[in-house]
Structures are given as structure tokens and as C-alpha cells.
């Protein structure tokens, strides 16, 4: 029996090794021969003889984008060609791996995408971990949206991250649905303040009169509404990107917005977002099913329409939606704020820092790059010099999908895009607000002042 057992083990090993060859056994030299067969998996772009650069990202589409940009770069810079290897990791784990390699001072890639929420963890290393992009950014700097660049600066004022987009918030309206109940585009355009928005919502909900259908939805697992409010009042709960900044959530704007949301819920104008916020499976299903017909979100949410509510989804929304400015509490306030995003960094461990930095700024700020960002990824690009061109592009998916052109709205709000920093205080604030405060206020109807008071004390004890 002993022999039989061993032979089973041996057989499985043999079957396994004959199946797999030695390809996966990295200790052997045969690996390289096998790798060639698996070309589609190892994504390497550009000139084989060029300088080797390694890039990590957490989104497959970004990897494809960089691949195309490498080709363009090599065309334009025959003397500084690049051979780029991009690797797509799972979202949160890529950040874990990046901070670990930075901390270990070994093993980091040349270039890495960092999601905005994770950015404070990475930028705190400043010159110790990262290579500043200030030099490389110069050719494009004049026409870039300043507030967005600021998001990715270190406390020392140096630029460490390059943005993909502004992430400017706007209000999305399902015009087709609204028209069914007698609300016209002019009505929507006349919404200036949150009070107007509430009135419009009431009008719609009353006209529709259907249980379980709402005008909008408020988030219990996302801070977008609150961020918009802060930008309107020019407040910032992180205390700004300064060394000894103290977090403060007991702000007029936050208070006002939460009370406003409670009112929307009470009047049944709003529901609590399914799955906590709109950018989830449940939230998007609500959009597709007309459960909600309006919501504030960043312009990059357009890509969700393309990917999840496009022609093959069975819930096609083409030609139905209209994009407008977000309302404000008091007229004259800023009406938008950049949210979300990806800051791409060059690490100090790179052997070709300058090349990597130049390439990243080329990919994310030059005309070629910005056009591709708009057409392939559907983002509101940061380089204002290209907005007109983006707007007139007839073939662009988004220009055809929505009732109006996204960049028209962007041009209107150009000077009204505020800023709320993402700093080392942000994770603690988000933890508390998302896990407790929003649920208390929106699900349980708790008094806003009390809830914020409680949040403040928790956050303070957390960020000591």
C-alpha cells in the first residue's frame, strides 16, 4: 500500500510536470523559451532595444493605454526609445505591493498608477521614495488644470503624481424619463441651487407617483456629496496638505449637506443608494431601471455608461441622459470639485527616472495622450488646451451617447472647479464617515450635529 501511495503521488507529479513542462519552474533556464509562447500574458510594448521600463497598474484599460502611448513616444523620440513591461495587479493588492517595495527600497517598478485614495500612503515618502515630475511637466504646465495637479503634490510642494483626469463633478439627468413627466431641459437648466434641485425632484416624484421610484439617491458608503458641498464653501475637512494639518469634519458645508440629504429622504425625493453609492452594481442597476433619474458624480462616470449601460447591456441609455452643472447652496459658489482619480508616479528606484518622468508627462498631458485618454478611457482631460478639440470630435462615443457634449459642461465650469485635498488624514475621515456617520444620519435619521461631533472625536483620537 505504501508503494501504491507513493506511486499515486509520483504519477500526479509526472502528469503535472508533463502538462506544464518546466515553464513555471522559474528556477530553470527553460523558462525563457516557454515565455515566448505566452506572449499575450506578458504585456511588453515598444522597441525591444529601447530602455526597459516596468509599469504597474490595477486596471487593464490603463495598461492598454500605456502600451499605445509607448508606440507613439518611440515614433517621436527615436533616440530615447522605450521597451515597456506593464503588469496589471488586483486593485488593493497592487498598492500593498507598491508600498512594500518602496519601504524595502527594492523591487519597485519604474512607473506606477496610484489610486487617489491610496495616494497619501505613497506620497508621504516624497524624495525618499519618488522622483519629482516638476521638470518633466514644464512643457504642459501652463494649460493644465492647476487644482488637479495640486492633488498630487507632496507636502514639500513638489509634483509627484501625474493625473489622468480632473474628475470634475457634474449632475447627470435622465432627460427621457423626466420628459415623460413634463420636465423639460429648460427646467433642468434653471436649477441653480440645491433648493431648486429639491423642488424639481419633488415635482418629478409627485408626477410619477410610483412607490419605490425616486429622483436621486444619497450615499452611505461614499463622500461625493459632502465633497461637493465642501468645495462650494471652500472648506476642506482634511485641513489641507500641510504638515500639522488637523482634520475637522464639523464644517458648515458638511452639516448643511447632511441636513439637506435628510430632507430629501424625508420627502421621498431620494432613496439611500443601493449598495451604498451609485458606482456599484446595485447603483448602476438603479440607473438602468429608472429607479433614480438624477445623481451627482464625476465626469469619469461616463465610462460606466459605456461599459455597463451600453448597447449590449439590455438597458441601453444612449441618447437619454443630459449632463449639467451641479447645484450650489448659495449662488456664486464654486459648483464642482475633482474627485477620484489615479496619480501616476515615478519611483526613486527607477534606473531611468528622467525618461520615465518624461514619458509619463507625455502620455498624460500631451495632445496625443490627452486625445487617447478622452477617446479610449472617457475621462475629462486636464489639459485645457485640448478641450475644444475633444468637444468637436464627432466620432467620440460620449459625444454621441449623451444629449449634450460633456466638454461643453466642462467649459462652463472651468473656473468653478474647487479642491478638497486627499492627505494622510483622509483615510481616518473616510473610515469614520463611511462606516458610521453616514449610516447614522441617513439610515437612522440621527441628529447631524451630534453625529458630526461624535465623528470628530473618533477621528481625532485616530489621527494622533
Amino acid at each position, binding site marked *: 500500500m505504501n508503494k501504491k501511495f*507513493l506511486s499515486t*503521488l*509520483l504519477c500526479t507529479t509526472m502528469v503535472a510536470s508533463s502538462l506544464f513542462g518546466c515553464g513555471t519552474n522559474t528556477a530553470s533556464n527553460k523558462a525563457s523559451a516557454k515565455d515566448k509562447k505566452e506572449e499575450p500574458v506578458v504585456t511588453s510594448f515598444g522597441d525591444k532595444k529601447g530602455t526597459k521600463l516596468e509599469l504597474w497598474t490595477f486596471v487593464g484599460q490603463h495598461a492598454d493605454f500605456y502600451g499605445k502611448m509607448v508606440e507613439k513616444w518611440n515614433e517621436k523620440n527615436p533616440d530615447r526609445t522605450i521597451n515597456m513591461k506593464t503588469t496589471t495587479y488586483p486593485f*488593493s493588492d497592487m498598492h*500593498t505591493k507598491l*508600498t512594500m517595495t*518602496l*519601504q524595502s527600497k527594492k523591487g519597485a517598478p519604474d512607473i506606477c498608477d496610484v489610486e487617489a485614495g*491610496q495616494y497619501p*500612503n505613497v506620497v*508621504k*515618502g*516624497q524624495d*525618499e*521614495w519618488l522622483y519629482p515630475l516638476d521638470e518633466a511637466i514644464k512643457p504642459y504646465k501652463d494649460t493644465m488644470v492647476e487644482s488637479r495637479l495640486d492633488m498630487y503634490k507632496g507636502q514639500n510642494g513638489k509634483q509627484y503624481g501625474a493625473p489622468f483626469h480632473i474628475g470634475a463633478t457634474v449632475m447627470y439627468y435622465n432627460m427621457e424619463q423626466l420628459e415623460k413627466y413634463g420636465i423639460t431641459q429648460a427646467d433642468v437648466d434653471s436649477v441653480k441651487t440645491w433648493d431648486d434641485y429639491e423642488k424639481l425632484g419633488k415635482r418629478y416624484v409627485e408626477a410619477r407617483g410610483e412607490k419605490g421610484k425616486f429622483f436621486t439617491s444619497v450615499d*452611505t*458608503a461614499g463622500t461625493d456629496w459632502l465633497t461637493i458641498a465642501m468645495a462650494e464653501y471652500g472648506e476642506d475637512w482634511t485641513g489641507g496638505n500641510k504638515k500639522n494639518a488637523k482634520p475637522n469634519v464639523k464644517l458648515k458645508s458638511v452639516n448643511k449637506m447632511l441636513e439637506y440629504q435628510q430632507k430629501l429622504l424625508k420627502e421621498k425625493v431620494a432613496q439611500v443608494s*443601493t*449598495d451604498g453609492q451609485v458606482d456599484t452594481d*446595485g447603483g448602476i*442597476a438603479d440607473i438602468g431601471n429608472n429607479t433614480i433619474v438624477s445623481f451627482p458624480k464625476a465626469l469619469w462616470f461616463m465610462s460606466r455608461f459605456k461599459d455597463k449601460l451600453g448597447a449590449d447591456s439590455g438597458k441601453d441609455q444612449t441618447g437619454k441622459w443630459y449632463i449639467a452643472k451641479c447645484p450650489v447652496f448659495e449662488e456664486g459658489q464654486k459648483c464642482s470639485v475633482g474627485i477620484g482619480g489615479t496619480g501616476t508616479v515615478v519611483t526613486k528606484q527607477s534606473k531611468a527616472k528622467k525618461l520615465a518622468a518624461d514619458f509619463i508627462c507625455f502620455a498624460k498631458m500631451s495632445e496625443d495622450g490627452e486625445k487617447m485618454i478622452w477617446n479610449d478611457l472617457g475621462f475629462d482631460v486636464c489639459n485645457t488646451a485640448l478641450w475644444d478639440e475633444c468637444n468637436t470630435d464627432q466620432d467620440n462615443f460620449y459625444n454621441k451617447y449623451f444629449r449634450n457634449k460633456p466638454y461643453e459642461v466642462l467649459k462652463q465650469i472651468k473656473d468653478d472647479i474647487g479642491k478638497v485635498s486627499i492627505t494622510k488624514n483622509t*483615510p*481616518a475621515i473616510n*473610515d469614520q464617515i*463611511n*462606516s*458610521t456617520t453616514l*449610516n447614522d444620519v441617513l*439610515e437612522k435619521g440621527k441628529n447631524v450635529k451630534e453625529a458630526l461631533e461624535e465623528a470628530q472625536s*473618533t477621528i481625532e*483620537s*485616530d489621527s*494622533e
Partner: protein
Amino acid sequence: MVEHASSYSKDGEDKMKKDNIFKRFLYSQKTAPYVFVLPFLLSFCVFWIYPFSSTIVMSFQDIQPMGSKWIGLGNYKKLLADKVFLQAVGNSVMYMLLTLVLLIPFPLLFASLLDSRLVKAKGIWKALLYIPSLTSVVISGTLFRMMFSERDGSQFNLILNFFGHDKIQWLKMYPTAYFALLLIACWRWTGVNMLYFLSGLKSIDTGLYESAEIDGATGWQKFIYVTIPMLRPTLIYVLTISIYAGLAMFLESFMLWGNGSPYNIGTTIVGYLYRRGIEKNQMGYASAVGLVLLIIALVINMIQLILSGTFKKEES
């Protein structure tokens, strides 16, 4: 690895001719145990001592990119005042106790039943009960999150509808959230624990059952007086493992909430460690959390192991 084993004897043969003393040394009953445990000693020295001691050092430090600051007991002091941490400890202990109640007696019973001749088609049931644990966590997480979704059509809301109850937000309240957690735990681990017991049952000398039968024992008496005592080593193993696994639970919670649950109802010690160490990159603080977990788990388990006599020297 198989070659490895046979190389022992081959080497031995070569040396037998050359060096009788060495052979006698290597083959002596005194040396043999050390040869057997050598791989563990090596692995312990190489992969444990350094990481573990740097973890201890880190727990007294504030880890920063520009160099680490020594802060003495700062992390531990902060820990004791950290409400979320204390809540996480509460959650983990609660979960551990509940899983002990659910995941030891029932799998034991199932295993004994499966081992008896009463059940037909055993292979199928074993395989089906075991499948959940080999299902990738990514997929079982997605499935359970959707089944417990707050949406109308989620499976558990459909069940509620069937009984005439409105849909509820399963994952936002303590009792239902714990129900979901325990359900996943039972789903994933019943088969595994059953398998431990099944293999333990195989080590019982069947002669014991025969002699019990001659003495006129009923099935239940055999279970109490033969099976349970003979299964003690396996029971102790399952108990020890379950205590730690319960205290260190993270995956099940991650499957449902992705480490950000409302009111922290799903935050466990390891989940909190993960949030601090990995999401917020505070390795010093996270190390302190981990060491506290080690101490809690070790104390409980050492008491249990000493009481059950596992550390006693066996008399032959």
C-alpha cells in the same frame, strides 16, 4: 521530494562502508529525532526568527519612510484606548466562540455517521460537503455578497418574501450580519472539520469496537466510550486550530464587506491589522495588533493544551 527521502538511505549506504561511527551516530535512536525535526529547525531559523523579531521591534516604533522612530510602548497604549480595536477583539472572540459551538460537535457527528455503515453513497456526500472549501474565495465571496445583497431579488430576501416579510439590509445589522458570517463559516469549514474527524476515526483500532460489542455496548455507548476518547488527539487539534482560526478570521468578513463594514460590525482583529498595516501603511501599529492577537490566542490555547495533557510526556 521523494528523491530526498531515498537519498537518506543511499547516502547511508555509502557511508556505512566508509564510516561506521558516523553511521551509528546518524542511525542511533538519540540522533534520529533531531534529523527528523531538522527541516523545521532550518525553516524556523531562516524564515521565522528574523521576521518575527523585526515585527517585535516594529511594534515599538513609528515606521516612517524617512526612518523609524522609537516610541516605546506608544503603540500599545494607543491600542488599549482604540475603540475600533476593542470592538474588533469583541467581534473576533464572539465569532470564535460561536464557531466552536457550531463547527466541532456537528462535523464530529456527521463524520461518525459517515463512518458508520448507515449511510449510502458516502463518497458523493463527502465530496459535496468538501467542495466549498476548495472554491476560490473570490468567487464564493462574490456569490455570498450577492445572495445577502439588500436588493429585492437577492436569495435571502426572496426567502423573507416567501414568509411575507419585507426585504432587509442583511449586512448592515449585527444579528443578520453575524448570521451571514456564521453561515459562510459553516459552509466553508464543516467539510474540512469533518475530514479531520474522518481521518481521526480511521486511526481507531477496530478491535476496540469489537470488544465493546462483546461487552454489549450500544452504538451510542460506543460513540461516547470508545470514539470520543480515542479521537481526543484529533479533537484537541481541531479545537486548537478553531480557536486560532476563529480569533484570526478575516476572509469570511472580507468576502462580505471587503474590509469596510457599516459600524465596523464585520471588523475583526486581523481585518483591523490589515486596515492599519496595509491600507493605512502603519506597520508599527499593525505589528502591535498582531502581537496582541498572538498573545490572546497563545494564552487560550496553552491553557487548553496543558489542561488536556498534550504537553505531558507520553508513557509507553
